[in-house]
């Protein structure tokens, strides 16, 4: 690719690299930590953004997810740890040389430039000749469906359209990865849902790796190949959405993704993946024991069972596990019925088809059952 001739009397332009391998290399985040002259806001976070994958950092505000993204982008310097692309460390590179496409919640489009000029900007910074950059910008605007708006100014577009321009601008230079920091936070619910699908389909078509930051669990579930759940600066668990949903490692992860019932246990017996638990009334049940805490500290145990995995048992029906409780409330939601049942002095939620829960009328004593595979033994953090 031809570059503009260098003018030797000017300060050297920090021209970013024109990556030919954008999105086809892994980004490794190794033991990353950050503190602003105080407690650590990110502690020992390690994961690999695999090429072509959509990885979401999910967590509440203050969990360190945005700070992690800002460190990858180069706007914050890690206190410890390393970030590597294809084995080469990039922590000493300024943001303009890292070749990541970053999109913020506020869109951050240049207000005085047209849509096309905005999308051409990263190519202009890389010294791409005007003819080629116009063609590439037009091509990318076509991909995000904004060709008709090429000559508009950002303020003449809707929020969703502006966000698509920001996406096109972040993608046009074939970045190593796309870093999205709560990009849909400013949009209303309906638009957010359609943008989720749109971003996902653009990502699939282009094949770029995406590191996505959000606090919205549904958004994370819909879009991600893998989700990394963060809390208090720590990465608690990373895995596919169904992994995390079926086999959460901690009570926090279990409640961060969907609804769950946490039933306290007095003790855990046995060894191996399937173990016996003792409930507060002395009865016993079976549950999966997958995630063993690393330190040997004594922690209170509980089991997690999803509401839709509980069943209302008939009088003589056999089940792998069963407990008894009193129905407090039943709500018809439409596609399912939701019951609140009091067990061991706490409320348990059960969801299911209307006919399966016919016996669970308020005030009735019922037996509820579940399969051993659907119950997880978790330990308090």
């Amino acid at each position: 690719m031809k570059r503009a001739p260098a003018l030797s009397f000017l300060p050297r332009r920090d021209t970013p690299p024109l990556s030919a391998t954008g999105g086809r290399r892994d980004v490794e985040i190794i033991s990353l930590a950050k503190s602003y002259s105080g407690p650590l806001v990110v502690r020992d976070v390690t994961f690999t953004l695999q090429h072509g994958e959509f990885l979401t950092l999910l967590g509440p505000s203050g969990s360190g997810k945005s700070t992690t993204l800002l460190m990858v982008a180069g706007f914050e310097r890690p206190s410890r740890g390393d970030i590597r692309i294809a084995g080469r460390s990039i922590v000493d590179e300024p943001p303009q040389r890292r070749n990541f496409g970053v999109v913020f919640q506020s869109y951050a489009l240049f207000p005085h430039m047209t849509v096309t000029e905005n999308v051409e900007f990263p190519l202009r910074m890389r010294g791409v000749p005007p003819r080629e950059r116009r063609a590439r910008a037009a091509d990318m605007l076509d991909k995000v469906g904004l060709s008709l708006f090429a000559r508009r100014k950002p303020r003449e577009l809707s929020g969703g359209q502006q966000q698509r321009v920001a996406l096109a601008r972040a993608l046009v230079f074939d970045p190593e990865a796309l870093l999205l920091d709560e990009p849909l936070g400013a949009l209303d619910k309906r638009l957010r849902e359609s943008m989720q699908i749109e971003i996902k389909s653009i990502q699939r078509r282009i094949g770029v790796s995406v590191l996505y930051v959000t606090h919205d669990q549904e958004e994370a579930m819909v879009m991600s190949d893998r989700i990394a759940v963060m809390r208090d600066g720590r990465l608690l668990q990373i895995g596919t959405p169904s992994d995390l949903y079926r086999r959460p490692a901690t009570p926090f992860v279990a409640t961060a993704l969907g609804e769950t019932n946490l039933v306290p246990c007095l003790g855990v017996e046995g060894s191996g993946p399937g173990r016996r638990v003792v409930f507060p009334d002395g009865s016993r049940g079976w549950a999966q024991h997958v995630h063993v805490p690393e330190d040997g500290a004594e922690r209170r145990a509980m089991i997690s069972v999803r509401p839709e995995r509980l069943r209302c048992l008939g009088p003589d029906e056999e089940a792998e596990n069963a407990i008894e409780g009193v129905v407090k409330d039943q709500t018809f939601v439409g596609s399912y019925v939701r019951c609140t049942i009091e067990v061991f002095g706490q409320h348990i939620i059960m969801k299911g088809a209307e006919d399966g829960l016919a016996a669970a009328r308020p005030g009735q004593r019922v037996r509820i059952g579940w399969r051993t595979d659907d119950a997880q033994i978790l330990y308090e953090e």
Partner: protein
Amino acid sequence: MGVSEDALAAAGRRWLPAARGRWPFSLGGTLLFAACVPIFLYLLLPTLVVVPMAFTPKPLLEFPPSGVSLRPFRDLFHDGAWISAGVVSLKAASLAVVIASVVGTMAALALHAVRFPGQGLLQSIILVPIVAPLIVLALADYEFLLKFHLTGTWTGIGLSHSVLAAPYVFITVQASLAGLDPALVRSARSLGAGSLSVFRHVYIPALRPGLAAGALLAFIASFDETVIALFQQGPQATTLPVKMFTDIQYELSPKIAAVAALLVGVATLVFLVQTAALVGRRSRAHGGWPTR
């Protein structure tokens, strides 16, 4: 672009609801309007009273004028002393605007998006020329410039005025930068922009409206200033306000009223142009479908 009569009629209906009759305002609105009129007169009359005085046919200032004539203006433009006073004022103001713009903008940029102890104090120091007694500043400038043999020159007046004008640019540019989205800077950098490119493509466009407003204020601050200019006046360095001040002590020439009327006219014109530009920008911003 023509406005159709229908559109006008529609607008009229909106403002003049038929049920209310002809008078569009409520009793409270009418009283408020009545209360405002004397205040507007109080604010404007002293300035406007000079305008009719400028059109007198007599060789002496008089009010009310005994006729209408352009003679004071003709005399004014044939008087070399007045013309050169105008030129000196323009030169001094231009120098002040250039220096104040550079200094004020740099100060605002330096203090933008950083926090450090003593920042508030530093900002107050930058604003001192606005609140400091003008006479003290004038005396200090005079003493200082005397050493460099710059008193009695338009350069000296321009330099002194730039000190007075820089805070205005600082304030307006700072206000412009306050509205700048920090994500814009980060975006630009992640897209490959180095410091120079960020300055050119993010900061310059953001501070441009503030700089324009600040430069205008700086120009007015210098063009209008009398005390400093009086201290530093000389045969080659008499500004318009100084000439007006000194002349009125010797002769009551209507030329002074003519100059004043011209200044009022120019100020009104500048104000109208600026308002029109602002309204235009607003309607473009909210106009929806743009025309190419």
